[in-house]
């Protein structure tokens, strides 16, 4: 390969070569894990019913290790173990998934404002899931029913439409993408309203998709979402090279050895799958996929090899705390909390995009 131009002391003399903050990545990962753990503890300890912290600890220890330390009654045990623990785990899973999906869409569309919510992908998944609820056809394969399948179909269809339309509108890429996303999301929202109108008994369930909340969290939902989010995110992380090549556009990526024709549908499909999994268990939670990857990129640089896993970690952190806030404030839907954080952030990005972003 190369002669040791930089290896023999060169790297030391060129500190910039040690990628934007290797140290920074380390602290982001370590910090993320610690903050997430703290969030998990807080999330399990706090809720509308107050459970003494000691009881919470003993209940969790009992369940994990099979001991019998806890003296709490069965109802308290159920609150901690069957409601709060899965709720925290589900919030983390969904947060990680939405952040990974956002980072992937941003890389593929080469647009920092892409996010499953902004693009209408989440609405597509929600509409698919709602239609699944209305069709009186019940089958389950490994716990996945028609709603899950249609949520995925809805996500894939809406992202494909946005992706294709945004490239041919003749508008500036940013404008084209946002307008297409808006139009598609509006259409899907109308579809959802229609589904609610037709739903009868399923109204409450469809309404929950719109809310974006972990109210319905359960071990079943967690078990349904975790494998999809985990596996798809890991596959996306292994495609970091493709996402990095796409930073320079599809042509340049092809010249850098990326098989664009294969990678683009693969990555779009995986990110849609993650979005669909997140939406079917928690509804529409916006802006996680926008805020988290953006901040991570500011700190680590745009290398997907760092952006994807660190975004997953901090996406989990963001939703655990957002859900905690939502519960403490008085059981408001967590989607409201992320919107309050995310929408102004989006507007700031849009403002900066106009000045600093050459298109």
């Amino acid at each position: 390969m190369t002669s040791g131009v930089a290896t023999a002391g060169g790297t030391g003399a060129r500190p910039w070569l040690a990628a934007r903050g290797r140290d920074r990545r380390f602290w982001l990962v370590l910090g993320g894990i610690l903050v997430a753990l703290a969030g998990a503890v807080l999330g399990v300890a706090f809720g509308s019913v107050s459970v003494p912290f000691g009881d919470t600890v003993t209940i969790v220890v009992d369940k994990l290790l099979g001991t019998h330390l806890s003296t709490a009654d069965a109802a308290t045990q159920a609150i901690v173990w069957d409601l709060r623990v899965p709720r925290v785990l589900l919030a983390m899973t969904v947060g990680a998934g939405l952040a990974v999906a956002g980072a992937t869409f941003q890389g593929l569309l080469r647009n920092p404002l892409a996010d499953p919510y902004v693009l209408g992908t989440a609405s597509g998944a929600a509409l698919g899931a709602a239609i699944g609820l209305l069709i009186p056809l019940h089958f389950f394969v490994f716990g996945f029913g028609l709603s899950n399948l249609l949520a995925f179909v809805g996500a894939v269809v809406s992202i494909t439409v946005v992706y294709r339309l945004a490239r041919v509108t003749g508008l500036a890429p940013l404008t084209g993408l946002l307008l297409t996303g808006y139009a598609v999301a509006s259409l899907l929202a109308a579809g959802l309203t229609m589904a609610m109108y037709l739903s009868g008994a399923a109204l409450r369930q469809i309404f929950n998709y719109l809310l974006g909340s972990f109210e319905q969290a359960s071990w079943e939902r967690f078990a349904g979402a975790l494998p999809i989010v985990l596996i798809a995110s890991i596959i996306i992380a292994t495609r970091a090279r493709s996402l990095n090549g796409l930073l320079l556009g599809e042509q340049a990526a092809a010249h850098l050895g990326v098989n664009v024709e294969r990678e683009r549908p693969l990555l779009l499909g995986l990110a849609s799958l993650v979005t669909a999994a997140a939406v079917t268990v928690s509804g529409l939670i916006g802006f996680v996929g926008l805020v988290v990857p953006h901040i991570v990129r500011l700190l680590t640089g745009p290398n997907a090899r760092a952006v994807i896993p660190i975004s997953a970690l901090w996406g989990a952190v963001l939703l655990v705390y957002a859900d905690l806030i939502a519960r403490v404030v008085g059981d408001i839907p967590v989607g409201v909390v992320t919107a309050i954080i995310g929408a102004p952030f989006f507007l700031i990005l849009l403002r900066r995009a106009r000045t600093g972003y050459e298109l």
Partner: protein
Amino acid sequence: MTAAVWLDGVTVEARGRAILRDVSFRVEPGERVALIGPNGAGKSTLLRVIAGVLHPNAGRVELGGEPVGSMDRGTVARRLAVVPQQTALPFSMRVEEVVALGRLPHEDALRGAQPADRAAVAAAIDRVGLGGLLGRDARELSLGERQLVLLALAVAQEAPTLLLDEPTVHLDLRHQVEAMELMRDLNERDGTTLIAVLHDLALASHFFPRLLLLDHGRLVADGTPPEVLSDARIREVFGVSPELVRLAATRG
């Protein structure tokens, strides 16, 4: 000797119109070749065919003795570096982060950049003389500076053959000459095979020992600058007075 690039009877059609017709030529390892011709002659299409991103309707294209169509993209990218077109970067990227993208074809999918990759990036940055731009946001550079960053990216790719499409188009005269000198140096000192699409006939004939002249999709001349740029051809193909080109060529 195996040709670095070999085209045999390459024809490309789009919407019933031939963009390249029966183009054949060999480029040996270590050669420095300029592709010239008027707008719409098919120069950029020819580059895309060589790079294997466009499959010809007829004919064969080989890189280092193997058909480019049967190689995976990674193999092509390790044999052939293409200096990318200027593009708007979606995110803030430092100069060295852009150059590092040149190592993608060499990177292990899971482990990422290794010390050898970082060394190649450092060497490419030194080679192109970008030391002064390190740490800068590539989006805030001038067009000329960005062109050099993209050239460094292709150098970091460490492919035996380098393809350039109008590498001097955004540069002022001094930077054009500097870029040409750099390319000549890459070719003569490092032995990189160079194929460049050039608009400026004067620069092409001054810096390139071999010219390929395309006109309406046909290869109409292949040889040294005096052979290719005869008065009659300049008049016929480019439709301008030969003096204009000669004057410019002598100033170098």
